């Protein structure tokens, strides 16, 4: 439904033909710097159904096929390749920085020399070490266990922080990913789009996020922060579904990561999407970014999120010419 609302907002905004946007300089308050946590604990734990999946009577994913494809995906996941080449790769890392006054230019101050501890079901399982080449980035090496809860405890800049425990859950794998050659919805021309085939785990209350890397470049704009609950698709097959929603060019390689997340993370990301998708008369009022990070020393909320979840990936490779 988020996509629906985006389309509505887009078209409504286009009506305001006499509207004008101009830059203004404002005298804004500046809050004290506070810790921003961006952490992801992931692994390739896939959900495999107990039986064959009937896809609307049109197709069937047999369990054996799912197991086979899952193994292929797991063994040929382009994770390390993307990590090596991409400018941004957040998984199995905790990145610490400080908030800055609005209008600040340049990168924020990284929080170095922090003590970052990873807990599994309240037991310390890893003391994270800071990446020597990336100040403020702490690597996670621990392999999470499906059904366990994870949280961080951080000591930084004289303050003690903790995150709310997050449940680690397996993720349905992306079984296929392919370039789909079809008519553009905006014109009569034929274009390539992405299509992934996967399925949703039966049982309501699941949430997902997709990350996109186009030719090893992370797509960071808000329109590429795609999330969804399982409302309306609970337990369904998704065949050739286009979450990326943009045309692809010949020779493009689009790597799609599918992560199973929590409701908390889903709401956190959607708030950020809302804060970035502004400029329409029909905007909703801006809201504080919800967080699961707490400053225990000052007894107040910090910023950011520590997320955990199973991660699947697959790549769409577009042929070098149009058909």
């Amino acid at each position, binding site marked *: 439904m988020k996509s629906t609302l985006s389309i509505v907002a887009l078209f409504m905004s286009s009506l305001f033909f006499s509207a004008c946007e101009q830059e203004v300089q404002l005298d804004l308050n500046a809050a004290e710097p506070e810790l921003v946590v961006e952490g992801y604990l992931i692994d390739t734990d896939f959900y495999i159904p107990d039986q064959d999946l009937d896809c609307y009577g049109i197709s069937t994913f047999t369990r054996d096929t799912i197991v086979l494809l899952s193994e292929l995906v797991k063994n040929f996941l382009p994770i390390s390749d993307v990590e090596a080449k991409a400018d*941004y790769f957040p998984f199995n890392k905790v990145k610490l920085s400080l908030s800055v006054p609005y209008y600040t230019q*340049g990168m924020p101050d990284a929080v170095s020399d922090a003590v970052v501890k990873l807990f599994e079901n309240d037991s310390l399982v890893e003391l994270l070490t800071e990446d020597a080449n990336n100040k403020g980035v702490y690597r996670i090496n621990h392999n999470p266990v499906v059904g366990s809860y994870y949280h961080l405890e951080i000591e930084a800049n004289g303050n003690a922080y903790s995150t709310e425990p997050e449940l680690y859950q397996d993720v349905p794998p992306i079984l296929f990913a392919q370039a789909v050659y079809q008519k553009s919805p905006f014109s009569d021309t034929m274009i390539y789009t992405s299509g992934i085939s996967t399925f949703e785990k039966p049982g309501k209350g699941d949430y997902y996020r997709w990350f996109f890397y186009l030719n090893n470049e992370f797509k960071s704009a808000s329109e590429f922060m795609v999330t969804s609950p399982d409302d309306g698709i609970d337990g369904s097959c998704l065949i050739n579904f286009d979450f990326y929603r943009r045309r692809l060019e010949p020779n493009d390689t689009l790597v799609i990561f599918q992560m199973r997340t929590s409701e908390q993370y889903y709401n956190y990301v959607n708030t950020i999407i809302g804060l970035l998708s*502004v400029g329409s008369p029909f905007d909703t009022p801006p809201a504080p970014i919800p967080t699961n990070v707490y400053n225990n020393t000052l007894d107040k909320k910090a910023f950011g999120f520590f997320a955990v979840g199973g991660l699947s990936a697959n790549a769409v490779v577009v042929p070098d010419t149009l058909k």
Partner: protein
Amino acid sequence: MKPLHGLLLFLFVSTNLFAQKFTISGYVKDKETGEGMIAATVLVKELKQGTTTNEYGFYSLSLEQGRYTIEWSFIGFQTVSEVIDLNKNFTRTIELGFGENLLGEVVVTGEREDANVTSTEIGVNKIDIELVKKIPQLLGEADIIRSILLLPGVTTVGEGASGFNVRGGNIDQNLILLDESPVFSSSHLFGFFSVFNADAIKDTKLYKGGIPAKYGGRLSSVLDIRQRDGNAKKFSARGGVGLLFSRLTVEGPLVKDKVSFLIAGRRSYFDLFFPISKNAAINTSKLYFYDLNGKINWTINDKNRVYLSGYSGNDIFGFSDLFNTQWGNNTASARWNHLFNDKLFANFTGIYSQYSYALGTDFGALGFDWRAKIINYTAKADFTYYLNPKNTLEFGWHNTYYQFSPGSATGYFAVGDNNDTVTFKVPDIPAIETAFYVSNEQKIGARINLSYGVRYSGFAQTGPGKVYLYPNNIPVSDNPLVSVKPNDSIQYSNSDIVKLYHGIEPRFAGTYIINEESSVKLGYNRMRQYIHLISNTTAATPVDIYMPAGKYIKPAIVDQVSMGYFKNFFTNKYEGSAEVYFKKFKDIVDYKDRAELLLNNTIETELYSGIGRAYGLELQIKKNKGKLTGWVSYTLSRAERKVEQINQGNWYLANWNKTHDISVVASYDITKKLNISSNFAYMSSRPISFPDGMAYIENKYIPIYNRRNDDETPAYHRLDLSGNYSFDLKKKREGIDIKTKSWRENTSLDLAFGAYNVYARKNPYSIYFREDPDNPGVMKSYQLSIYATVIPYITLNFKF
């Protein structure tokens, strides 16, 4: 003693204090058109007492036997006077002709000159349609809603925003009635134009305070709009041709003086320019609105009249074949006026009103079709009993059946090479609202006029339907990261009542007349509102929905006290008023941060409940006579809310709070043919939230907000100018034949021209914060202005 018992006893005593003998009653009509005149004065000169006609032009006066001089008058029309020996009941229907000697010098307000001083009405503004047509308007279209925004106590969140805010109330707190049918959306094109065609409107009145007991269901105001009946004497037409839309009204008698009709229509034609575009997507797009007003009135006999009214308005927008949306109001009402006797006037009404929207795309796997609507059927009976010249009793019963359809969406999902659909529907919610009321307008001596009454209203959300149950019966979470999940549900059947609310709504307005030119007034009203607009966007959108009070959403209640001093100067040439008000709201709805309100069948998990207060001072000085007419108004006000989960439970400003609001409206008749007019509007800043920092997340900066509505936009101001030139078609020419002369005699042609936002002020609609698209990593702030430039217009208006 309970209040109702006390009121009935008071009325009983009042009834017996004044023994009536005979009654003179009838209608006051416009001689030219045969239309009933609202608020025309009927004066008994010997007694210096009188009455005014009601919404249908009816009056009734009961007097002791005697010889009286009766005067029927209406400002701008010639007064009719007659000496009557009142020794039996009389029926007198009077037709008033236009006062030609006053032409060009008077703005017809309809009310007697000192009505603002003597009446019990406090916080009430009559909107003069003739003045609305003269003052500058966006693209030259006479706009009732934009004109209302120039009145004290009425604001909007911004230019182009749908609806209006009255005395600190939200836009859904205004009951907008068109020939008694409720209109849910008052704007075309997202708020650019109102849905009311001024050519079809006879009378408009805005009640901001001291709201009579016959009105209910909204907290903050009643906008009562009456359509013209149609000319019962002769056929005529009027209209206008503008650059972007045109209108035409045709009216006339079907049976002279018995049955008349009126049909009025408008259509915009922005879309006619689209085919010029070379862009295939644009030249196949559509964007227009239309509305149609229709009315038939049938005078069956002296005691029975029937009115059939209808309105249909729609906005249609389609982007190529990909995206289509439509929204609009449809209303219909049938009214039967019946005189049981000379003193008892009754109006029985049946109403149908619907607001609906639909939108959809054909984006293949992302396609959807989405629809929602609210329908209501109303039956009501309103009675006016003219006890005597000092007491007029009103009572009645209203009953409304609602059908809320909050939304259904059908999504198209690709499955292999085939498409399949998934439909998600928020279940329909039926509800019934009933109200009884009784009120009396009483004159005590020469100096005190009172209007008092009670309304007792009830509202029941009924089955069939499913209601979710939540842990501890609390559906909303204080934690913005999680929502409360239902742990059970109850299925209600057709005859079940899900939740019932009811309560008393006392109303009072009193005037103490200090002298012929000044008075002080006091008003109090309690209003209950059982339906809520569910919207958390800066401006309401066509896809917002109404939801009824139910198990979790309580009806909102407001108590308003207002006081005013009214003073006329120079024999009523100038009207001055100063009013103060205080409103206390209870159980108003506000929203969680980033609430998801659309297609949500557990919407109660997104809503907070709180209290509110609004208070202010309204000053106005108005000039009604002479070549220069208009008004200057100033409002100092504050609208605040308090919700436990927002801003740590402290008071915060409502989105529509405008501390200072100044309007200057002036219209000057240079000659009988040329008029110039201007508006100036100033509104101080609107509450908004600014960030106080940024967090770097996912390779981009995200603004950090901490408190709701703690900052302010820059102020708003605007100047509009207009001119109106009437062509002299009666000028004699050589060789003109009789037929042509006759045609010219009955035709008028006016050229309206002007400019909106003359000095091209870029008024702030909103301010937002985001990365500079041309400089990634650089965060900036931007102001959005809706009308950022001067907008000229020219329209040719005709009447024949």
